Structure formats: structure tokens, C-alpha cells
């Protein structure tokens, strides 16, 4: 059973710096969500508040309707794994860290933990501080998945993991999710590989919500319009233009939003070329500092 998450007007400020700015959205739960944003967009600050690692400067996060900060009924349903490994000291042996997790977390699944340690080839007697970045990230994945928390969050959890390990992570995540649905949030600034595993994504930029949408629907949402400059200008008038580039008399405009059949026919009649925009490029357009009219 996954947890529902409501982010209500949350701000996080560090002195004069605002990392999260009056952000609101809701996740219904029982899905795998992606939290996307460029570096420094506020992802970690936001997840820290959702995971009760930090008190919000303003606003509230509710887990299944309950405010999460310092509320044991809510916090024990939440597990946030940051790639920095807050749950493990550098001199701790992995075995000890697992025992600690088993003692502190009621929903802990020790058998799953052992399976995952094997999967990622993590030695029980190794000290956390001696592991490579990729192995530390893998251990974070073990702590997150074996927590069986109704809301499990991975903050850049795959950092430093090589491709085979990342695939193991996705496979293990999908297997766990298929066996027992829960709410999972994975934050990343690399969308390519991960996108297929996600159901919905939340994109934030400068601490504000850019969009919250079903990933698959987003794949048909961006269109690149190429053709003679004036014809392109006429065609995109009134549409959301993310970016435009000109090369001689040819112009390319990236537009956001589904184009209906009539519009597509018009484009054909005007000799314009319509091409879908890949998800990664769409993400870049949506979070570009000079993102045009949005």
C-alpha cells in the first residue's frame, strides 16, 4: 500500500537563498514518480522536507493526510535515501548498518536486504567509507528497497553506479513494485534511462513547479516545427513556444502542447515539417533559464 503525498505551499530558505519557493503538488500514490530538475533546482531540499529530514521554512507536507515533520505515524511510512548516505557512518560496517535499519524500521524486510546485498555484490563486513561511490549508492538502494516504506524516495540514488548496476536497480525496483505497489519517488537530472520506468514526473526549476504529468503523455507533447521563417511564425502564433532557432531563412520552433489533426493538416499545407521532440530535449527546453515564453 503506497502513501499519498501532499506538498502544500512548501518553501525552504537558507538565509537569503530560496531553494524551494511556495511549491504545491499532490501525488496520489502507488506509482513510480520521477522528480526532475537541473542541479540546484531544489530537488534535494524538497525531498528532505518530504522525508522529515528538515523542517520547511513555510508550508506543510502531508503523508496520507498527516503532517510529516516530527510525526512518528507519518515518518515511519517514509524512507528517504540520499546518495550521501545519511543513515550510515563512514566507519560503520554494512552488516552493522543493516542491523540498525532492522531495529529502527518496523517494515524492514531482512530477507530482501540480504538478496539485494548479493545482487549488488556488497560484502557485509566492508566499511561504508571504504566503498566506491557506486557501491555506496547501491547500498543506499538496498536500504531504500528493503525498508518497504509506503513512500520510498531515492535522491540521485544511481549516482556513480555503472550501467549494469543501474539496470539491476531498475529491475529490483520494478520487481518490488510488481510484488507490492508502493509510492516511489526517484530524483534525477538524467531522464533518458529512467523515463521508461516512471509513470509520472514532476519537473521543478528554481524551486518552482514546472509541470506534473504522466511521462508517456509527455512524449507526444513536444513538437519541433521546421520551415520557412514566416510560415513557422504564423503557425506557432498562440502556441507555447519553448525555443526558436534560425538558420538563414529556415526556422525551427519547439512548441509544447498536443497538436490536433486540423493543425497538423495546416502545417502540411504550409509545407512545414513537424517532428516529435525527444523527452530529454523537452526537459532541457522546459528548464532552460532563457526558456522563452512559458
Amino acid at each position, binding site marked *: 500500500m503506497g502513501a499519498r503525498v501532499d506538498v502544500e505551499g512548501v518553501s525552504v530558505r537558507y538565509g537569503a537563498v530560496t531553494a524551494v519557493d511556495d511549491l504545491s503538488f499532490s501525488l496520489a500514490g502507488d506509482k513510480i514518480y520521477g522528480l526532475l530538475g537541473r542541479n540546484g533546482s531544489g530537488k*534535494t531540499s524538497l525531498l*528532505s522536507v518530504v*522525508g*522529515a*529530514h*528538515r*523542517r520547511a521554512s513555510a508550508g506543510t507536507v502531508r503523508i496520507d493526510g498527516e503532517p510529516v*515533520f*516530527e*510525526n*512518528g505515524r507519518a*515518518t*515511519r*511510512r*517514509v*524512507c*528517504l*535515501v*540520499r*546518495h*550521501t*548516505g*545519511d*543513515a*550510515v*557512518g563512514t566507519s560503520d560496517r554494512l552488516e552493522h*548498518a543493516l*542491523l*540498525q*535499519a532492522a*531495529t*529502527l*524500521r*518496523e517494515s524492514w524486510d531482512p530477507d530482501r536486504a540480504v538478496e539485494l546485498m548479493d545482487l549488488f555484490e556488497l560484502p557485509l563486513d566492508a566499511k561504508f567509507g571504504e566503498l566506491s*561511490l557506486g557501491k*555506496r549508492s547501491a547500498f543506499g538502494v538496498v536500504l531504500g528497497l528493503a*525498508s518497504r*516504506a509506503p513512500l520510498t524516495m531515492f535522491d540521485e540514488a544511481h549516482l556513480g553506479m555503472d550501467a549494469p548496476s543501474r539496470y539491476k536497480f531498475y529491475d529490483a525496483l520494478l520487481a518490488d513494485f510488481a510484488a507490492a505497489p508502493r509510492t516511489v519517488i526517484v530524483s534525477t537530472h538524467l531522464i533518458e534511462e529512467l523515463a521508461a520506468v516512471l509513470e509520472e514526473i514532476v519537473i521543478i526549476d528554481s524551486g518552482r513547479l514546472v509541470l506534473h504529468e504522466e511521462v508517456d503523455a509527455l512524449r507526444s507533447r513536444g513538437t519541433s516545427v521546421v520551415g520557412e521563417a514566416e510560415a513557422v511564425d504564423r503557425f506557432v502564433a498562440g502556441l507555447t513556444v519553448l525555443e526558436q532557432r534560425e538558420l538563414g531563412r529556415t526556422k525551427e520552433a519547439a512548441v509544447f502542447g498536443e497538436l490536433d489533426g486540423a493543425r497538423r493538416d495546416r502545417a502540411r499545407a504550409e509545407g512545414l515539417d513537424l517532428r516529435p521532440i525527444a523527452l530529454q530535449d523537452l526537459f532541457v527546453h522546459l528548464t532552460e533559464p532563457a526558456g522563452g515564453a512559458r
Partner: protein
Amino acid sequence: MKWPVLRVLCRALVSVLVVVWAAALVFVAVLVPVVSIWREVTISGWNVASVQAGRWFLFGLGYYAVHDVLPAVIAHGRTRREFAAQAAVVTLVVSGAAALLVAVGFGLEFLLYRAMDWTQRLGEQGTFSSATDFPAIVWAHWAVFAVWMVVGAMVAAGFDRLGGGGLVVVPVGVALILPPGLAVNGSNSLPFLPTLGSWGSVPTAVVLLLCAVSWAVGLAVTWSLVRDLPVRARAV
């Protein structure tokens, strides 16, 4: 499972405590005979080792509990409040265990000194004067250790919460450990600081009361600092 934070803390701290105690015993057992080659042994080596270093060790355990264990406790879905309540009990459990180990150390030393016909002098007149006065040794160390452990936790909370501004809790810590230090015998100086004198023979009840007040004030200050302590991002 009941008292999860307490179990985690005790498991981490008591094992370290026992190892360090055993190491200190070996150290004293080797050092004192070496010293005896050059001069006559007239004071208790264990008293020097356990009282001075022991307090700083307990301080370190308190620091570790807040600086290292608290982030893990939060990361595993527990609240700061749960931590604070159970850690408060832990300061009593761990300092009590440490006090018992100190008393056992005195007993072992007593046997060694008697066999070698050395003098096991403890210090100024005060709460206890004999290495076999177990009850007095235990409760005096227990009370003082508990204060030192809480102060360690408080200082960690200060630096973790306030960064460099955490320096402001250091004088508070000194103020909390001074009265018990002055009141309890065998320790009439702050470790590694010049001798400040002693209040001489202080009634047991007064010592316990002083310690209880320091312990409670230390806990209150610590709680005010950790109640909304963010889990900091560790450097990778």
C-alpha cells in the same frame, strides 16, 4: 520492538565502552609496574586513568550519539522526539555501566597493589577515599559521567545546529560540569585544565542534586537544539 533508539544506542555505545575499558585496564596494568622500576608507587594509576580520561570518553559518546546516530535514526523514519526521550535514558544506562566498570577497575587494582605492596592513594578527602568503597565510587562516577555525556550531546547539537555559532554552548557546558567536578572527590580539577580546587567533603545528597540539575539543564538545552535539527548532507 520496544525502545528501538535505546537499543541501537546501547548496542553501539556499550560495546565501545567495554573495549575501551579493557584497553585502559591493560594500559594501567602495564604502566604502573614500569613506573615502579624507578620510583615507589604511591597513587592509584586507575584513578588517574579512569577519572580524567573517563569523563572525556563519556563526553565523546554523548557527542557521537547526536552527531552520528541521530541522523541515522531520522533517516530510518524515527522522530527527534523519540530519539531525545530514549537517548536521555541511554545517558543513565551507559554512564551507569561505565561507573560499574570503573569500580571493577578499582577492585582489580586493589588486588594488584596489595600483592605488590604498593599504596593506592586516591586523592583528596571527599565522596570516597578507598578503592573498596564500591557504592560511593559507583554513584559518584555514575552521576558525573551522566552529566559529561549529556554535555557531549549538547555540544554536538550546538555545532550541528548552529555551525560555528555552536561555540556559544561551550561555556554552558563548562558551567554544567564544573559544580559536579568540584564536589566529587578524586577529581578536583577539570581534566586537562589547571586545578580549580575542591569544595572538600560535600554531602552525598548535595552532589547528587548538583549532578541531577546539570543533567536536566543539559538535556533541556540539547532538546531545544535538536528539535528541528536538519539532517545535514554529508560530503561524499
